[in-house]
């Protein structure tokens, strides 16, 4: 029983909070990806500022181009008393 509990505590329970997709272009030769995460202890989290940097990071990877086909995933990985909130954004950089 304690072994089962230990395995459960060490294994992440992945949960998808939300997902969204924008229009996908025909030119998908260049895929770009950024992600950001935040560790939360016992549910204590006082802001979501970790998400704000994502847009700038994504823009930085596609200078002079358009970013389309953006897949945004908001996930939570639970490790017993620790939680990892992760937001992953992938897209295609289309140079006009």
């Amino acid at each position, binding site marked *: 029983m304690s072994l089962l509990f230990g395995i459960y505590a060490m294994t992440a329970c992945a949960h998808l909070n939300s997902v969204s*997709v924008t229009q996908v272009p025909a030119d998908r030769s260049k895929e770009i990806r950024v992600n950001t995460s935040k560790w939360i202890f016992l549910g204590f989290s006082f802001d979501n500022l970790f998400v704000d940097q994502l847009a700038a990071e994504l823009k930085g990877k596609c200078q002079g181009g358009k970013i389309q086909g953006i897949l945004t995933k908001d996930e939570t990985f639970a490790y017993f008393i620790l939680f990892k909130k992760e937001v992953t954004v992938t897209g295609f950089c289309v140079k006009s």
Partner: protein
Amino acid sequence: MINIKGNMQKKVSFLKNSIAIFFVVIFLTSCAYSVHMVHTSGFEPYAPIKQGKMIESEADQFVILYFASDNSYVDQAFQELLNKCKNGNITGITTKYMTKLGFFSWHNVVQMQGMCYKS
């Protein structure tokens, strides 16, 4: 008197068994859906619907008692959608995330649907 009591007990027992079987059947099948979110993308570049082709993709993940190590099924659904429209634009993409509930287990499902326009 004893016969009446015996018959009543049989009926009660039958009713209890029926209710138990009913709940077992309900719990063993996916009897409930929970739609968590629906998202719709824009429709640019605009084109008549007749010129496009409706494409769909779906991926799911079977979870028992919250044991799920990743959410890769989302990427699978997205990749499947892309593969159905190679070298074309996909617009008006509706993304649905839902859960089919079962007996101490469930299926997390992501469905994507969009219009494929090939140039």
